[in-house]
């Protein structure tokens, strides 16, 4: 198929940036979206033009590195997938596709479609862990009884890959779904209870410091999240936060 691409080009963090139009031809519907971008970049390199910078790593839908706001949606029009798992069969011959970086002031653009998502790392460092000594005397995790229900919920929350689609989709640029997932995965387990109060307070504090917006429960994050993280986790985050501060 033949496509018109309108792609955000920005030389660096200080550059103002603009949309540039490209045409690609003979795109196979079996290609992934990133392979289509590869084809475009090869043609640019052949013409001695600067290729378009975009993020990716595993290309298996598990690392959370690929991003892109495609036709106004994080990771494009498909559901439950990352951009590397988005296939060109989701588009029609002759389509015009808008490709922009994930937008939020907390995710500054580094170049073209690459954004800096270190804000998520800093939130994690503020409390997204449990402190255990790896002394060799640590209790075997399997010997601690945990209800199947909570174990499942915790596992679901832990499947967040930190991609940032929730922030990119949210009209408020809120990071609540990400933080909710990272708080919930521990809040649901006895191992996480010890530091629960400090964790939720510190992570929310860091989230606010990074300049993410306020959640208004639109639910856009949950729809666009490639891992199907539920906004039930946000209600849990609110509960945990209230319990820790009151």
């Amino acid at each position, binding site marked *: 198929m033949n496509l018109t691409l309108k792609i955000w080009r920005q030389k660096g963090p200080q550059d103002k940036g603009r949309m540039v139009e490209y045409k690609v031809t003979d795109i196979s519907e079996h290609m992934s979206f990133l392979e289509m971008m590869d084809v475009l970049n090869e043609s640019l390199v052949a013409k001695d033009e600067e290729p378009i910078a975009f993020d990716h790593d595993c290309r298996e839908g598990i690392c959370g590195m690929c991003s892109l706001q495609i036709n106004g949606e994080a990771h494009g029009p498909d559901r439950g997938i990352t951009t590397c798992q988005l296939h060109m069969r989701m588009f029609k011959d002759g389509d015009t596709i808008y490709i922009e970086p994930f937008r939020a002031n907390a995710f500054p653009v580094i170049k073209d479609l690459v954004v800096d998502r270190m804000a998520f790392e800093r939130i994690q460092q503020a409390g997204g862990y449990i402190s255990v000594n790896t002394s060799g005397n640590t209790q075997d995790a399997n010997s601690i009884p945990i209800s199947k229900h909570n174990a499942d919920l915790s596992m679901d929350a832990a499947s967040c890959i930190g991609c940032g689609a929730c922030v990119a989709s949210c009209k408020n640029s809120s990071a609540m779904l990400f933080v909710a997932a990272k708080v919930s995965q521990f809040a649901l387990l006895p191992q996480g209870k010890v530091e629960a109060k400090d964790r939720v307070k510190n992570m929310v504090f860091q989230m606010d410091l990074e300049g993410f917006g306020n959640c208004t429960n639109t639910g856009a994050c949950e729809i666009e999240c490639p891992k199907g993280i539920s906004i039930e986790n946000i209600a849990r985050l*609110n509960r945990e936060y209230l319990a820790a501060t009151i």
Partner: protein
Amino acid sequence: MSRILSSSIARKVAMALSALFLIIFLLIHLTVNITSLFSKDVFNELSHFMGTNFLVQFLMQPILIFGVVFHFVMGFVLELRNKRARTVKYVKYNGAANASWMSRNMAVSGGVILAFLVLHFIDFWFPEMNYKYIEVLPEDPTRYFEELQHKFTNPLRVGAYVIAFVLLALHLLHGFQSAFQSIGLNKYTNCVKSLGKIYAVAIPAGFIIIALFHYFNH
């Protein structure tokens, strides 16, 4: 206050609590007003009680006014902050793909409700305050029904009321369940969502029926 409300979640919870308070208030307000459809005397009696009872006038009324002002000021503050969290906008943003119109336009529906409230205060509250506390006219427990009827003779006013209540319904279709989510109560989500839809349609519809009833029956 600014210290308590310094975190995003605290602001979110405060927003929800003020909203839940308004939800309860609206229910009471409708209950009183709906009697005007059936009985002039009951409506007069209830209005007289609400208008002269010390607790209602000097405790509940100030709390209500604070609640309303807090709610819309906080609502607009949050809206502005959220806009500031993304200063470079998307060229293409498909908001409808993943969120309802109601949830994305709370400030729009809220703004219309606010405009309505100004009209509503000019219509009923200012004259009422003037009657009772400025001119201090003698209380007539039977005056309320005529006052109400008189207001709804103007088709423009009736139209404005109807539009405002449609927007209130849209505001509540998202807001009701959102408030429960905000305070972390999601155990009965399906129940809350259904109840929210019923409330969001029934309460504004009640007010609309009252306005239309008096317009066509005076």
